[in-house]
């Protein structure tokens, strides 16, 4: 049997090869490019300009807004690496975020007149 196999393989190399257990996660950062490209089933094989425009408009905040990091994220390649690869977003010891540096959704909301009235009247203005 073994001899037969050897003889057969001497004459023919199967196209199917055992490549071993897949280890993609271990080599992921180096091999996978996440830069947006056209979907393989897209008939036009192009992406609308809005994809690049949206990404170039997107900004990193806090510690990710680091000039040395941004230099590696030149226009058009934002999205190449996952956010997690950019490093921790925790500030260094002694560093603090300023709320205005964060996206708008984290900003303090302006006081409404109803709220001001509620504070000034001790809540009485809320009573119908």
């Amino acid at each position, binding site marked *: 049997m073994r001899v037969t196999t050897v003889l057969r393989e001497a004459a023919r190399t199967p196209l199917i090869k055992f490549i071993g257990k897949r280890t993609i996660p271990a080599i992921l950062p180096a091999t996978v490019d996440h830069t947006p490209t056209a979907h393989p*089933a897209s008939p036009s094989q192009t992406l*609308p300009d*809005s994809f690049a425009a949206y990404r170039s408009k997107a900004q990193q905040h806090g510690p990710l807004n680091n000039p040395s990091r941004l230099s590696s994220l030149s226009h058009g390649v934002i999205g190449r690496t996952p956010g997690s690869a950019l490093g921790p977003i925790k500030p260094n010891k002694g560093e603090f975020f300023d709320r205005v540096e964060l996206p708008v959704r984290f900003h303090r909301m302006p006081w409404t007149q109803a709220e001001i009235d509620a504070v000034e009247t001790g809540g009485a203005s809320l009573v119908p």
Partner: protein
Amino acid sequence: MFRSILPRSPQAGLRTAASQVVSSNAVFTPSVALLRRLRRGYASSSDEHDVVIIGGGVAGYVAAIKAGQEGLKARLSLTTTACIEKRGALGGTCLNVGCIPSKSLLNNTHLYHQILHDTKKRGIDVGIVKLNLEQMMKAKQTSVDGLTKGIEFLFKKNSVDYVKGMGSFVNEHEVKVDLLDGGEKTLRGKNIIIATGSEATPFLGLNIDEERIVTSTGALSLKEVPKKMVVIGGGIIGLEMASVWSRLGADVTVVEFLNQIGGPGMDAEVAKQAQKILQKQGIQFLLGTKVTNGSDSGSTVSVNVEAAKGGKEQTLDADVVLVAIGRRPYTAGLGLENIGLEIDERGRLVIDQEYRTKASHIRVIGDCTFGPMLAHKAEEEAVAAIEYIKKGFGHVNYGAIPSVMYTHPEVAWVGQNEAEIKASGVKYRVGNFPFSANSRAKTNLETEGFVKLISDAETDRILGVHIIGPGAGEMIAEATLAIEYGASSEDVARTCHAHPTLAEAFKEAAMATYSKAIHF
């Protein structure tokens, strides 16, 4: 003091909404309650869902289950994957009004037809055979109900939050759900997956009432067998429904604009053979013919047709007209205008190679984006999309997605057809093997059809496999695996296949491709 009655940030309001979702599945232990209270003080809400999936069809529910399996789920009993479905039942078109109910009807009508017409030569004498259409429909519904309830169980098992309602985007991170039970809630998602599927394309000038002028949905629930039926469109859905009602006694005419049945992808040689067999079963075909208009004002529906290239007009009368001219993406009411996502000229959402829209946390999978509208393609995309979110990589090989038409005999194919390969300029070899030379097909008295295998003349790598014959839908799995692995026809031919099986025909076709078949 006022914090509890006057939310100070949009986050606070959203947390309240999200916690309503959680409450249905949450375990109310003191530790969880304490955890929630502690979380309220942070600027970023930790109650938001990791993944919000809009659509509970094949793409959506598979994504939800995979998300649960990948750990995007219960953390201290707080669900972090939500799936929104407006139908009130999971499984989408496939389970409720598509693949599953049609296979139930195809299987049972085939049995009925076989008992009526194909028992004597097998040595079986049967007495009076009667159709009980109501019971046949009940059997269909039992299959559907069992499967949809099975998915609900899998949702619970994987801690997926099932939200019954119609979802629409408020902004890029928030989806408002109009609940089926009344009221609304807003879900916030770090990642949002759109999996809203597709709907039957209507035919301009014919008003679909799902009783006399029907789509595939109505064709699966007719209350009686029509005397005459016209099917507009000779694709897979049209031919499967034509088979069902023809077997039950309807006089069926299929009108197809192209000169070939089967729709895109089906090999011309296979399509020709399929038409011949279906004609023998009683289905009539008008190929190269277009429907110009129709009217349902009379006791029957009349449809005017003429040759696609122009010619004499002809009127077809029918009790039921099935419109099966294709499907189109379903994104109505999704609020895409609120987030500015692009759709192409055919209504498909535009995505990149990782299913991302221009807003990278919003992904689209299944029928509402590129690629063939097939349930198994949607499933593959669902798994890949979650893996992209969780691990950063995913895999779908669009060159190895099988197609199956569940008529009798079945038709199945994967890879390229001969015309496509010829057009690409690649030199190729073709191997054919007929089921009439296969021992198992002979014993089953089902010898119609053949296996056709196409490989690269230079490398012998398999480029396409086309099967018409008994069990084609099962056999195509082996061909798909061969293409996925990049196998040569010789690889398949040298692989031992059990005897006597229909799969031997596949092996013999592979032998015929690189050398010669033994039994033909």
